[in-house]
């Protein structure tokens, strides 16, 4: 901004600034938003259309003979999984029951696992990141293991966790925590540590304690970064809930177990339905945290609000 909108000095200067259009940054920021409405959906809708088209193409052209049932057409998936309330067990016994009611039950189960796992991952991740930000040695001590946790193939550990803890709700939550914690720690820590020196000096000059510095400066400054982490972790917690469930052949069936069951009984329409449901859940939590993030930091953070 080259023109100064200094106040209480010269009305002429203000008028000049207003004429040049940068006298009112708020109005300038709101303006493009108003026109962005309908065009916002053009991109996602086109990609979705392409995707559905490719799905039909796969069924009709790429799959042939005995492979055809492996990729049922989308409208059958929608019909069997979302438009039919309940499908009783197939007459030949080879099919597990299906329909929306089963999907919703699975969804409910998976949401519980993901929500609890994410909640614990947030609290734990927050505490770890805060401790790491306060002492370099804590950071050095924990960092390699967090990276290891992030890098190790979770699939290899799922059966192990099941064997040790039992194939129950607790073990499912555990898988969720393991998969969701890293982005929270990494983004929170990054946010806490990347506060400019000038701000720290301002706090030092005014005798702020570590705690005051953390509460008044570092946490608020880290908020945008924390919400980026939360958004990623929320998506991952759904993956964790579904993947954990997929390998656990006991307990209340969540979405993962449903996928597995339907696959084993060659009920591919329902299987795709369960996959779609997991994807919808992932999108929902991702958007939810994006929305919360906007509510919390949107008023001041330039990147989020524009």
């Amino acid at each position, binding site marked *: 901004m080259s023109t100064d909108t200094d106040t209480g000095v010269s009305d002429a200067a203000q008028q000049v600034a207003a004429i040049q259009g940068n006298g009112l940054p708020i109005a300038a920021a709101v303006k493009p938003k108003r026109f962005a409405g309908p065009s916002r959906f053009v991109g996602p809708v086109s990609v979705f259309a392409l995707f559905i088209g490719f799905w039909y193409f796969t069924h009709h052209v790429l799959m042939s003979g005995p492979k055809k049932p492996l990729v049922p057409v989308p409208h059958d998936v929608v019909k069997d999984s979302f438009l039919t309330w309940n499908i009783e067990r197939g007459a030949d016994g080879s099919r597990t029951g299906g329909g929306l009611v089963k999907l919703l039950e699975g969804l409910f189960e998976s949401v519980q696992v993901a929500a609890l796992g994410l909640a614990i991952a947030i609290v734990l991740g927050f505490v770890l990141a805060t401790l790491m930000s306060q002492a370099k040695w804590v950071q050095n001590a924990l960092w390699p293991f967090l990276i290891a946790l992030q890098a190790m193939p979770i699939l290899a550990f799922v059966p192990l966790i099941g064997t040790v803890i039992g194939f129950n709700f607790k073990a499912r939550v555990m898988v969720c925590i393991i998969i969701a914690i890293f982005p929270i720690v990494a983004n929170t820590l990054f946010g806490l540590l990347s506060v400019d020196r000038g701000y720290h000096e*301002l706090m030092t000059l005014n*005798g702020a304690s570590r705690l005051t510095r953390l509460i008044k400066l570092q946490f608020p400054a880290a908020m945008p970064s924390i919400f980026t982490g939360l958004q990623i972790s929320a998506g991952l917690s759904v993956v964790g809930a579904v993947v954990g469930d997929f390998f656990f052949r006991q307990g209340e069936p969540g979405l993962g177990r449903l996928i597995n069951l339907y696959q084993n009984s060659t009920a591919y329409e329902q299987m795709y339905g369960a996959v779609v449901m997991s994807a919808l859940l992932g999108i929902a939590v991702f958007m939810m945290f994006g929305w919360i993030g906007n509510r919390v930091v949107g008023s001041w953070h330039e990147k989020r609000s524009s």
Partner: protein
Amino acid sequence: MVVVLQRESAKIRPLTSEPIRGEDPLSATREHALEFKNLSMVFPDGTHALDDVSISIERGEFVTVVGPSGCGKSTLLRIASGLETHTGGECNVDRDSIGYVFQDATLFPWRTVRKNVELIAELHGLDSATMAPRVDESLELVGLKEHEVKYPRQLSGGMKMRASLARSLVLQPDVFLFDEPFGALDEISRERLNDELLALFKAKNFAGLFITHSIAEAVFLSTRVLVMSARPGRIVADYDVPFEFPRTHDIRYDPAFAELSGKISNDLRGAHP
């Protein structure tokens, strides 16, 4: 805290351009509001930043230091405020009564203008009843009262700097340190803020130590201009600025103004390595 409250009452007294010594219990034991005596500074990496610098500043004095980049001007302020510890000589100042205005406005983007102005007072534990009228006064002094609910991202560079000034004003410090506060502003905003800073200086009668690269700014604002040499920084010239207060924009075109600026400019040429 007691000191601050006494200063509150001192504010009501008619303002004069005379230094008010003796009314402040702390400055009674202190000869000057800010004093460097044979100050030197060598950083751990061996950089010799300051060498034998002696400056004393009273309330009602506004001293500006000009000098080549990297000559240690800012180090002077960092030592005065306690951000750095000098390696030789003395630095006498009441650290509880310093206002430090940074090169950047360093406003917290998540706080509104008003909440930003409250910050320093908040850190010093002022209760809201004491704080509110002072925050109002500070905001009015810098002309930001009607913008108090805005966030920093909605402000221009000049307005941000004003908010930063207002934040330092709330504690009503005796000594103000300015580290090139207007360096990033365009010429018009800069001159306007210079005018306002002078008005503030006359109203509050603090002791000012100002760092800048701009000779015009130095002469316009100051009662005294010091020229510092390249590293290690030494004071190589010392000018009293004769212009009467209140100074107006016009003195910039006064022949005496040009003459003094010319002298300082020559000294600065000599000061460059």
